[in-house]
Every structure is written in C-alpha cells, then in structure tokens.
C-alpha cells in the first residue's frame, strides 16, 4: 500500500458525516412512517443474495482502502449485480415506490445511495484518502440500510 495524500482527510470526513446525517434522518423517517402506518408486508428478497451483497460491498471497500483498485472495481461490480438481482426479485414481487410511504422513503434512500455510488465510481482510481473513506462509508451505509430498511 502506498502512502496517499492525507490533507483532504478532514474535509472528506466532514462531508461523509453530513451524508451520514442525511441517511440517518431518512432512515429515522422510514422507521417512524413504518411504525405509524403499520403496513404488514415484509419482504427482503432472497436472504442469500442479501448477505452476498453485503459481503461484496465490504470486500470492495477493504480492497479500495488498500488501494487494490481493479479488485475493488470487480467487487463493486459484483455488489451492484447482486443488488440489481435482488432489486429485480423485490420488484417482481410487487414492490413499487408508490405502494406506501415506507416504500417511497426507501426509494429516496436508495436513490441517494445510488448517487453516492456514482460519485464513488468517479474516484475509483484516485489515490486521495477521501475517496477511500467514501468507499468505506458506502459499505457501512449499505450494511445499515440492508439491516434496517428492507422491510416495508
């Protein structure tokens, strides 16, 4: 692992903290809406796919942290494929963002996450520490989202 420039670490950390608060606020709203609406449907897709996606994103973040960029890209692509497959499963089972308020909030959370993923992809080959932090952040956020949000 080569030493990366670290002067942008505080800025990246603050930015990720801001993103974390946005996700936290949205997940808080999701929890309240779900509790209030007491919508009975529970569907998480294939559990194995879910766990595989979590593992893939954690591996991608770890590889990115150690600057193994091509391997990180491969793991990231695997993660996207697994999430896409699971999303297709869930959509096939009748999920639609307008089904309920919980589904709408979940869609907003996923949209925001996708935006972060796109930004992370831009920094795939950068050596700056901020991009590495972003990948770790995305892995943590996905694990949290997957563990809390996929019940609507």
């Amino acid at each position, binding site marked *: 692992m080569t030493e990366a420039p670290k*002067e942008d670490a*505080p*800025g990246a950390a*603050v*930015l990720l*903290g*801001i*993103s974390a*608060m*946005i996700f*936290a*606020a*949205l997940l*808080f*709203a999701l929890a*309240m*809406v779900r*509790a*209030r*609406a007491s*919508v009975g449907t529970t569907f998480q897709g294939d559990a194995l796919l879910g766990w595989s996606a979590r593992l893939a994103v954690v591996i991608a973040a770890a590889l990115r942290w150690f600057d193994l960029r091509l391997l990180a890209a491969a793991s990231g692509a695997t993660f996207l494929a697994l999430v896409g497959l699971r999303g297709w499963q869930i959509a096939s089972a009748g999920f639609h*963002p*307008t*089904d*309920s*308020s*919980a589904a*709408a*909030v979940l869609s*907003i959370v996923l949209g925001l996450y996708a935006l972060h993923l796109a930004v992370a992809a831009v920094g795939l080959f950068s050596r700056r520490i901020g991009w590495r932090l972003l990948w770790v952040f995305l892995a943590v956020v996905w694990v949290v989202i997957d563990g809390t949000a996929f019940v609507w």
Partner: protein
Amino acid sequence: VAVARALSHLRVARVYLWAGLVYLAIGGGLALLIRWQWAYPGKPVPLFGGLLFPYTQGAITPDSYQALFTMHGLVMIFFAVTPILIGALSHWLVPAMIGARGLAYPRAAWVGVVFLLAAQAVALASFFVELGTARSGWTLYPPLSTIAPGHGQTLVVAALGLASISTVIGAVNVLVTVIRRRAPGMTWGRLPLTVWGLFFTAVLNAAFTPVLIATALLLLSDRLLGTEVFLAGALAQRGGGDPFAFQHLFWIFGHPEVYILILPVWGVVSDFVAFFTRRAAFWYRGTVGSMLAVTLLAGLVYGHHIFTTGIAPMLGAVFETLTLAISIPSTILFGNWLMTLWQGRVRLTVPMLYVTGVLLVFAAGGLTGLYLGAVATDIVLHDTLFVVGHFHLTMAAATFLGIFAALHHWAPKLLGCRLGDRLGAWHAVLTLLGLFLVFGGLIVAGLQGQHRRLYDPFVASVEHLANRSANRHTSFSAFGLATVQLLFVLNLIHSLLTRRVAVENPWQVGTLEWKEPDLEQQVMRGPHEFLSGDDEKSAGKDYLDQGEACPQKSAPDAK
C-alpha cells in the same frame, strides 16, 4: 498569491453580508406588517398597503397574514441572519483570525455563495407565483405544508434545501480551515473566542443542517411526487405516513439552529468584553468548555418543542432535564463575561455598547427560557406570545446586537471603512430600548394569554380585548425600532460614500485579523493579552499582538 487568497475569502464574506442585509430589510418589513395587523386588525396598511394588498384596498387578509407570518420567520433565520452571522463572519474572520492564508476550499466557498443566492431568489420568486408564497407557518408543519395549493410552498421548501446546502458547504470550509490552516503557534488554546464560536456553529451546522435537507427532500417528495410520508388520516390515500415524524425531524434540526445562531454571538461577546475591558477573558477554558457543552447538548434537547404533542411523560422528563441542564454552561458563560467586566478598564466603545445590550437581552431571554424548558409551565405557555417573546430575545435581539457589534468593530476590514461612532452609539442605545419594548411586550401579552398565531387575537376571547391597547403600544415600539434602524443605514451609506478611513487597528487589540496576511506569521500568545502600569508606558500601548515576539511585560530576562 497569499494576498489574492486572503482577498478571495473577503469577497465571499462581502457577498454573504450584502445578501443577508437585503433580506434582513425584507424580513423586518414582513414583521412590521404583522405588527400592524395586531395593532389594527383588518385595517388597511398605510403608505404601501394598496401596493402590497391591492385586492383588499390595503388590508391584510387572513391568508396574507399566514404568508407574512411564515415568511418573516424563514427569511430572518435562513436568508438574513445566517448569511450575515455565519456566512460573512465565518468566511472572512475564521481565516483572518487564525492567521490562515485563506479558506481551505476557496472555490467551494463560491459554490456556497451561489447556492445561497439561488435560495434567496427562489424564496423571493415564491411571492410572485399564483396563490402566493408559503402559508404553513415557519415550521412548515404538515399537513398544511403538504396540501397547501400553488407553487409558492414548493418553492419555499426548495429554497430552504438550497440554503441548507450553502450552509453545510460553509461548515465544511470552516471546520477544515480551523483544523488544518492555523498559523504556526496558533494552538487551540490561543484561538480567539469568536473563532471558537464560529467553529462550534460549523460543527452544529455539519451535524444538523443535513437533517433539514433530508426533511425538505421528503416534503418535496410529498408535494411533487404525491407520496404521503407526512400525511395521515383522511388526507392519506395510500396508507399514509406520519406527520409527527416531520415534527421530530424539524426540531432535531430546529433546536440546534438556536445555538447555531447564538454561538457566534457568544464568541464575539466573549472577545469584545475582554477587548474593551482591557483584560484577558476570565477563565478562557471555561468559556470554551461551556460553548462545547452547549454544542454537545444542543442535539439532545429538541423534545421540549414537542411537549404538547402528547409524547410519553418519561420522554418529556428526560428532555426537560436535558433542557434545563443547558442552563449550567450558559450560566458559566455569562458568569465569565461578568467576571471579565469586574474591575476591568471598561471602554464604552460602540461595539461595547452593543455587547452590553447582548448581555441584557440574553439574560432576559435565557431566564424566560427556563419556563419553556419545564413541562408544567411550557404546557400553559406554549401557544402564547410568551414563546415568541422568549425566542426573539435570544434568537433575534441577541443576534442582531451581536451582528451590529461585529459589523461596527470589523467594518474597517469587512467594508473598507470605519462606521461613525456618534450615529453608532445612538443606534446601539435606541435599538436596545426598542428591542426590550417590542419583545418585552410579547412576553407580557403572552403572560396575559394572548395566542401567538391568531389573525385577530381580539376576537378569540373577550379577555383578550384588554390586550388591544398593549398590542398597539408594542406595535408602535416596533415601528420606532424599525425607524431607528435608519440610523444604521445612514451610518453605513455615509461611511461608504465618504470612505471614512480607519486607522490601522482602531480598537487596539492583538488578534491577527488587523494585520496584513503574512506567510511567515508565527503566533506567540493568546488573543487578549494587555499591559498596564510601567509595562504599558514602556511599550507605548496596552495590548500585545498575538504574533508579537518579545513582549516587554513577560520577557523573563528583562527583570
């Protein structure tokens, strides 16, 4: 290059300042219209009434009143005070006071400016769309904010989102600048207290303004995409969501916002009290620790805003305890100011006059806040003007006086000219008087039970009829207060036109912003170190620059 960078953040600060001042005038104008309505409910507004409300011959309708009420709060908080106090002061003062060559992210600072100007433009545009601007109250509670017809409400929510993005960009810049760009020797223990205040404000902005962004996103989704995140009951078509979630989210941001606005003022006051009593700030670490404690507690006390919504009694007790706990660091802070003043050589300069005003209004605002922090008294007072009086004393009066103190003090650098002292002194004294009359009037009306949101409070109850003349007195005090602000405008225009040149370091203080940007800056001491007696005579001045290498006073080998 260093000078160019320094000027760059000064230009950013100036844009924030002027943008904020324009909206301060707009927000103030909206307040005067509200006060007119309370003085003469339903009567045509004199002078501009016909222009503003042409379809009612100048009279304010209930619908217009709701819009005035809503936009006064939003404009003042997000588009006036925040740009001036946080945008202007943070972007210029932080790098200047810590001896940095510029902001950590100068281009991002300009992006923040663009977002603010866009937000202000969108908010202003909301007044001119069909059905007018937002009318759901400044807290934007659903379902009113969700179902309100027209595009005005949508534009206002979007404007809040844009302004919030501007704020968080500024927060990142300030935090990284303070962490990374301090001049050599500028340790955390040597930071001016103004910088500490702005730093803690940036911490709160980075932590809690994102919650407002998320909330605005959800509200926009409800309005534009037809989701029902904040709708329930008969209004919901597809199962609905939870309007109460909005209240939680709003106040998770909203209460820290109080400290976001007041912390910079606390910092300014802490420094100015030391500067103008020619003494080091009493218990510097205690002052910083108090601001830190308030910053940490800020996010844990929001529940006192929703005592009356039926939250669990246990939760209410927890929030009450935490809320009242905040009075401990606040009291320490206040005590430190008094101890600094004690036996100090007070110079009643114009900034010091404003700061004295802050001490008085903050004491009154803080003491009235205790009644709202306790569940039992809050339930009685919650919907009355007492609440409005309390938060105007803290959030409006204290911040305005703090802003004026800062502007008068730093005008030579921030505006390029010195403001006149005679007009400034009159403005400070009369503004303080006006603030007490207006916001004290709100407190008294609140204690008499006057509801805080009614279009015509005097038809609600016969008992309220007795308040009519009191309301008129308060309203005329408000008109007087507004007139007094012309002194400031006059002072500002006169100083800008005549380019009244300030002497270098006019207040004779040692902080770095008065020096030219210096690449070799080395900081040797704290922000307020003063000399007296023989040391003062031999040095020919009574203060030490933070970058001064060999003070006459403390050089050990001189004795």
